[in-house]
């Protein structure tokens, strides 16, 4: 069996993983990065919008500073985030954008003079200053007071991913693709590396490391409809949950987006509605004004998603072989607008639907989009529960986003957190002697994984079909734990997931399982995925309030009195439900809980004395 030794094992070679790797390699440590796909194909490359950082170079970003970014982030999170983390993030973000520029990212730059932009379907003018010419510019994104989103054309994630991976190549970091971690190695106190299945040969390999960082991305694929890539499957987070020591933070905090296309759930931008697109039902009737007379299609993501589901529940969805959907209508925006301002949408329609949005309706439905939920870490990125274990990026709950992340903050988080946490990992490596690797324990874990594989191939335990069970899990979450949540729906969802979990103990392959067999890969990760799904549903049932993207129909208020706290979901061995614990959302308030100014909803206030006691620094806008 192949065995690798390294100082730092980074599981995941998306932006967060590679950013950490770079930091450790620059400090002279040996690093190995693992990825299911070649690094640049990681899901980070799919982010088109951009990264938020308060550089304040462009005209519409004038007067921006970390304080304003901080306020937007905390409000966006519906006061669910850790405010110390948010502060660190907003301060470091501008420097990180400049560092990326130094490494090679071709950020779009300020072009002085007059230009036009669209807002709510109307045309406006702006003037860029001569003295800012050539500095990093920014665009607008939802939920922000200023234009703060740094971008490279329509491919920010792709461009930054290229630069980061180039930097890894330059530093000689071993970035190994088609390597899938299937179990964490640990002795109950400290992480020791991972057991990995090679997706070229199917062989198991052992990676031993002084420190391990898990940067495996989000887990949208637990849901049937998601904008996420195929590999955002949650297996990395589930692998840590399976240790019984590491909790998932706020598993119920999942973000949805109103307009993924059907069948493939590829995201079409909010810009469509912003510029005047409308939503139609099976009768081609525009229904949003009936629900939201004031804002109609321009209501927030959460609200539009909820109204769409509500309308489909009334039997107004359009049936299709891929399930029900609604229509997005941008026909009336006309050719000139669609070919320029909505070019991406035009291309998606052409490539993936084969339709012309000037003449045809676009099939859309709400879909899962982002997991604020993740491996719970402290401010330094150290995972709760095991020493030598770290996590960053969408896989982690660091917790910058609380119950709702702002567009542009997650891609920025990957590199900013990667840099900060990378430096803490360097300190850890410098200050901690190498462990002696207990080889008997490693061998036992390898044997356990090999036995699982043998059982799946032989069908000794049963012949349950992995794709059927995975579909049941995805449907259970779609039906009971999606945009709308309520007591009865969540209980039914949990019952179904428990049934699926029980049946996963009898999984058996129908194919040979040899080599890079995809059925085996799916079967190895499914039980962990179902446990993760159960964490989401159980935490959603327990949280009897609505906050950010967690919407309880039976508890519509945001309840700061009882729920200004973070869920920690642990999985004890042999359990059929997670064990839920709680901690305070933030140790310190810079910005005490208040109204977000959008999204509406009633608030049950927290005890003012309690908040006052924890408020550290009166927040001052710059």
């Amino acid at each position: 069996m192949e065995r690798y030794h390294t100082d730092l094992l980074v599981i995941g070679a998306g932006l967060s993983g590679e950013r950490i790797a770079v930091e450790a390699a620059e400090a002279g440590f040996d690093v190995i990065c693992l990825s299911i796909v070649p690094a640049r194909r990681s899901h980070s490359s799919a982010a088109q919008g951009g990264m938020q950082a308060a550089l304040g170079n462009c005209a519409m970003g004038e007067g921006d500073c970390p304080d304003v970014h901080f306020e937007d982030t905390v409000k966006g999170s519906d006061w669910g985030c850790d405010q110390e983390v948010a502060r660190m993030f907003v301060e470091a973000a501008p420097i990180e954008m400049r560092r990326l520029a130094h490494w090679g990212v071709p950020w779009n730059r300020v072009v002085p003079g007059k230009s036009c932009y669209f807002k709510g379907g109307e045309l406006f003018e702006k003037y860029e200053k001569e003295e800012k010419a050539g500095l990093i510019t920014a665009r607008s994104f939802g939920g922000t007071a200023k234009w703060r989103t740094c971008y490279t054309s329509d491919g920010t994630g792709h461009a930054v991913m290229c630069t980061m991976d180039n930097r890894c190549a330059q530093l000689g970091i071993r970035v190994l693709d088609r390597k899938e971690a299937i179990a964490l190695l640990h002795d109950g106190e400290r992480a020791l590396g991972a057991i990995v299945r090679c997706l070229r040969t199917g062989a198991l390999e052992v990676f031993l490391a002084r420190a391990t960082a898990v940067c495996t991305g989000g887990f949208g694929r637990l849901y049937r409809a998601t904008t996420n890539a195929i590999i955002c499957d949650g297996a990395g987070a589930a692998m840590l949950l399976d240790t019984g020591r590491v909790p998932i933070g706020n598993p119920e905090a999942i973000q949805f987006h109103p307009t993924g296309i059907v069948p493939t759930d590829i995201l079409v931008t909010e810009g469509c509605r912003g510029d005047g697109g409308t939503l139609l039902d099976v009768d081609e009737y525009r229904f949003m004004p009936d629900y939201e007379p004031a804002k109609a299609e321009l209501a927030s993501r959460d609200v539009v998603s909820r109204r769409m589901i509500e309308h489909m529940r009334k039997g107004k969805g359009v049936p299709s072989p891929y399930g029900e959907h609604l229509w997005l209508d941008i026909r009336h925006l006309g050719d000139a607008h669609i070919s320029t301002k909505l070019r991406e949408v035009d291309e998606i329609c052409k490539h993936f639907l084969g339709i012309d949005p000037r003449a045809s309706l676009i099939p859309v439905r709400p879909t899962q989009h982002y997991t604020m939920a993740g491996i719970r870490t402290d401010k330094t990125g150290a995972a709760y529960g095991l020493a030598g274990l770290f996590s960053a990026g969408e896989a982690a709950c660091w917790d910058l986003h609380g119950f709702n992340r702002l567009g542009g903050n997650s891609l920025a988080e990957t590199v900013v957190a990667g840099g900060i946490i990378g430096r803490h990992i360097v300190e850890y490596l410098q200050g901690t002697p190498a462990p002696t690797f207990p080889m008997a324990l490693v061998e036992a874990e390898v044997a356990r994984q090999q036995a699982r594989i043998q059982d799946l191939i032989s069908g000794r335990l049963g012949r349950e079909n992995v794709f059927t069970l995975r579909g049941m899990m995805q449907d259970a979450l779609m039906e009971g734990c999606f945009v709308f949540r309520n007591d009865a729906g969540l209980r039914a969802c949990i019952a179904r997931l428990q049934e699926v979990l029980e049946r996963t103990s009898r999984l058996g392959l129908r194919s040979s399982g040899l080599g890079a067999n995809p059925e085996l890969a799916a079967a190895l990760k499914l039980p962990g995925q179902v446990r993760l799904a159960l964490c989401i549903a159980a935490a959603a049932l327990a949280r009897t309030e609505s906050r950010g993207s967690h919407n309880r129909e039976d508890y519509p208020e945001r309840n700061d009195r009882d729920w200004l706290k973070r869920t920690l979901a642990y999985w004890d061995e042999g359990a059929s439900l997670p064990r839920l614990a709680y901690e305070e959302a933030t140790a310190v308030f810079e910005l005490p809980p208040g109204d977000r100014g959008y999204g509406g909803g009633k608030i049950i206030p927290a005890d003012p004395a309690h908040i006052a006691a924890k408020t550290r620094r009166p927040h001052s806008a710059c």
Partner: protein
Amino acid sequence: MSRTLTFHIFRYNPQDPASQPHLQDFSLEETANMTLFIALNRLREEQDPGLMFDFCCRAGICGSCGMVVNGRPRLACQTKTKDLPHEITLLPLPVFKLIGDLCVDTGSWFREMYTRTESWIHTNTPFDPTKEEARMDNAVAEAIYEMERCIECGCCIAACSTARMRPDFLGAAGLARIARFALDPRDERTDRDYFELIGNDFGVFGCMGLLACEDVCPKNLPLQNQLGFLRRKMGITAIKQLFRKD
């Protein structure tokens, strides 16, 4: 209205001693808006769970799903079945090492390319976190991005007759990478440095200029222009080398 599609799919699992390379037939009812992503996943889930193929973003962004569809290298995820005849032949990309069925090892090929082209900014200026970023003209940034759009799908390599003949040829994607850095004012490499890397038969002088690469590039990279640009640049550098005294 609905068609029955017949797929002829290349099958071979090098890790299975019993496996022989062959084409296997599958049939599938076509549904509305079906792409090869949907079709192949249905074949895997409903007919043969061992069928190997690669998708990741399924949105034409990541470059995972290059394969030869009815004779032409393309991204499977953005290929709609309604644009194809009812008989569909799917083969793995040539040139790259086969992993199994439709999966090939583009990852190793491209990582080696990064090393050979030294695919990173060469600069002696250290990063200073206290300073404003160096300014850049937006048009320059956009020109760099234009070349950076390559998603490393490998289609141009698979379509290139030079690459099929000589495994060490850098291919259009590799040469485009050099062009990307040659455009970038942050990179301090000179024409001579680039000449060292690509002024030979596995670089620009290996290219026969027939431009199969540009035809198949799903991102429509201006490969023709860039190859011409490099050939001129390297041609001039070659002449200079001849007259060099040192």
